[in-house]
């Protein structure tokens, strides 16, 4: 019953999103495209923060590494094949997460937060201070990758609408993938680790391996978002890996509600939406943004995605408590 309502709601939102290009407004298509990319990014972090209990403050590293990989692996004046570039970029992000995970997952709590941040800063300075990625100026991805298979081209990422639907399709796939993973024995163990890692160990779970699996998976999916971002904007800078970005995506997850995939996506939309609106009002937009986030944390502990449940309970006459 409730599951049906939720499914209908999700399909309705999807239908609305699918209609965005029909407005014909290039501006909206671009804004919503970016929101979709950030929603993928936020969901990937939610796997760590919301489901495994690992608060990473360095998640932008994997986003940025995949974005740089997309730019660096593309020929300068020619289109790379999407079917090579996409997996290669995501694979590099996953590899980075695997290696970094081997180190950072030996720590817990506040130390984990600081060490993930430290590794992300290291990655940031690799791109910022060395010539590999054009230094602080960043690097261009001049030609968007081609989706051609043999002579057949199913879609063209140079076409704004094609690109939009491609990103939307990836978002849906990432969501379905994560929802499925969370139902698996692996996913259930992750939630167990979040709830009580010590108990999981005493029941014979080698929790380090599970956490490393989750960290790598989250890095890979963060890389999916980073790749799409690079393709969309055709330009990559070290700022993509900066701690601001890691903080922003964490705020998206908190804003939407941790431990809820749809919540993470909602948080990304809300965050990007607010940024757009507030930036239009004032140059001190960050002040407004911060206020809203503080308000949500204080008055909506479950994030925006807890709103429908709260409303329903309030309407039913507050018999909870």
């Amino acid at each position, binding site marked *: 019953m409730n599951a049906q309502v939720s499914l209908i709601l999700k399909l309705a939102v999807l239908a609305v999103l699918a209609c965005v290009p029909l407005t014909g407004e290039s501006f909206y298509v671009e804004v919503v495209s970016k929101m979709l990319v950030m929603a993928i990014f936020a969901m990937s972090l939610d796997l760590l923060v919301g489901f495994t209990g690992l608060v990473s403050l360095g998640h932008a590293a994997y986003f940025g590494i995949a974005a740089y990989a997309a730019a660096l692996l593309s020929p300068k004046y020619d289109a790379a094949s999407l079917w090579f570039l996409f997996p290669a970029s995501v694979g590099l992000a996953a590899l980075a997460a695997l290696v970094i995970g081997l180190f950072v997952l030996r720590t817990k709590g506040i130390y984990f937060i600081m060490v993930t941040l430290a590794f992300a800063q290291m990655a940031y300075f690799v791109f910022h201070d060395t010539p590999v990625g054009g230094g602080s100026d960043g690097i261009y991805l001049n030609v968007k990758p081609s989706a051609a298979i043999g002579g057949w081209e199913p879609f063209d990422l140079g076409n704004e609408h094609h690109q939009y639907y491609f990103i939307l399709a990836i978002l849906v796939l990432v969501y379905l993938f994560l929802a499925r993973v969370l*139902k*698996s*024995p692996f996913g*259930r163990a992750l939630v*167990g680790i979040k*709830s009580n890692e010590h*108990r999981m160990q005493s*029941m*014979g*779970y080698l929790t380090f391996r599970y956490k490393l699996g989750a960290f790598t998976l989250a890095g890979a999916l963060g890389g999916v978002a980073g790749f799409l971002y690079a393709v969309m904007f055709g330009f990559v800078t070290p700022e993509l890996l900066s701690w601001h970005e890691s903080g922003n995506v964490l705020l998206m997850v908190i804003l939407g509600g941790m431990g809820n995939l749809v919540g993470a996506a909602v948080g990304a939309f809300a965050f990007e939406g607010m940024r757009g609106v507030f930036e239009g009002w004032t140059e001190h937009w960050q002040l407004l943004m911060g206020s809203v986030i503080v308000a949500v944390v204080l008055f909506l502990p479950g994030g925006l995605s807890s709103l429908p449940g709260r409303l329903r309970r309030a309407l039913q006459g507050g018999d909870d408590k």
Partner: protein
Amino acid sequence: MSQTNKSEVLMVAKDLTRRFGGLVANRDVSVTIERGKIHVLLGPNGAGKSTCINMLSGDLPPSEGTIHFMGRDITGLTAAQRSRVGIGRSYQRTNIFPQFTVLENVRLAAQSRNQQPWRIFSKAMEQEWALEKARACIEEAGLGKRVDWLSGVLSHGEQRQLEIAMVLATDAQVLLLDEPLAGMGSEESAKMVELLKRLRATRGILLVEHDMDAVFAVADVITVMVNGEMLECGPPEQIKNSVAVQQAYLGTEESFHV
């Protein structure tokens, strides 16, 4: 006392010593756990019972001494590895997954026996073997009526039963139970004592317990610890009549009502 004729040594800890800096929490403690028997660790607060059970479960490495399980040296194994060879433990402070249902708590325990973490596309709720085992263990621990309850809202006694169901679901041969009766009412206690007697038939049990009535109702062997050392080890009658035990422990406690 025990109903079974299978008397098989499952676990042998020899001369366990644990130091915390200059403090010796356990000195030369030896414990044997046999199938079909309940071995009770008794002692006043600070006697080192928790340190001892922590060394047996792998939560704490011993400074000296060895632990063997079914003939294999397991001294160097972690808690997770010991769980995998067949040593299960419950904790003094209730240690469950309060946001999960009773079934999910025990299902996770059952899942631990065949983890397959790489199968990320199979559904946990379609692993019938784990569900069946979880339901059986919940039944065995006497929680059959609470299967779908959120474990966080169970009564204290029921949460202790749940802990035992979780240990059972890991196929543990040796149960290390740290004060399973703590904080229970008399009715709940009596049920737990019955449960322990039932479980003894096919497993070896080490029990840390304060409740004297319960201790003498279930114990086959009692080890009395004082100041981190073993004072005496033997059947309940021997402990009851031991002058040393009465002087060192029972005489100083406020109540010894047997």
